[in-house]
């Protein structure tokens, strides 16, 4: 039977205590779609870094009226291609490098061969992964 596209959508307050739960939910979703081993670890690591980055930085300059959320959307198509988006409603700030900090994006770039960052409305990090067999 041909596998149908499948989507996971998660959204919750941008607080550190929710990050692990989102990552675990993503891992379960990916396991159900036959992601495994190092690739499963790497994808969830990249997602965890993106989520943690939002919690740490996205709303630092936001006013009290702004809803502070983190969202994750994972879409696995019939060919096993995963489109993973992690996004927020905050304001992207280009920070100066600080020694001993800022490893998150470096880790994401090392893991995700295909990634884009869209800062036109909040910040939306999009990564593409081909499932390995």
């Amino acid at each position: 039977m041909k596998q149908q596209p499948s989507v996971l959508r998660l959204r919750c307050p941008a607080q550190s205590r929710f990050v692990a739960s989102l990552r675990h939910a993503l891992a379960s979703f990916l396991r159900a779609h036959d992601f495994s081993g190092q690739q499963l670890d790497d994808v969830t690591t990249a997602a965890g870094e993106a989520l943690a980055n939002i919690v740490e930085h996205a709303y630092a300059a936001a006013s009290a009226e702004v809803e502070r959320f983190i969202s994750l959307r994972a879409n696995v198509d019939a060919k096993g291609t995963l489109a993973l988006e992690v996004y927020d409603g905050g304001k992207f700030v280009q920070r100066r490098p600080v020694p001993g900090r800022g490893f998150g994006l470096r880790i994401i770039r090392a893991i995700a061969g295909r990634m884009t960052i869209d800062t036109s409305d909040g910040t939306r990090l999009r990564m593409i992964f081909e499932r390995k067999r």
Partner: protein
Amino acid sequence: MSESNLVKTVRLSGELEIGRKDEIRRALAASTDGAPVLLDLSDVTYADSIALTELLRFCAEAERESRPVALVIQTPQFARLIQYAGLATVFKVFEHPTDALAYLTERLRQ
């Protein structure tokens, strides 16, 4: 946490991630008494860059005080995270506690 006369061992387990940032910092801060430190992270199942930053801060402070630090890491995800972050040469990482202890003991003799 356990101590020997020569080396202090700090054990952290489970997921070292942003939700445990304060706990990680407190656990590491509790071992700043001048002894070499064996950070036994054998039972860590996941780590993120927030945990790496705390470890890096701790190791930098220990280096300023000339206290050797050795990390024991057995989880592939954690080991790869260090590689991806470009920190492979920054931390002294061992797979087995006995090797880490031997390294620290040798450093004490120098």
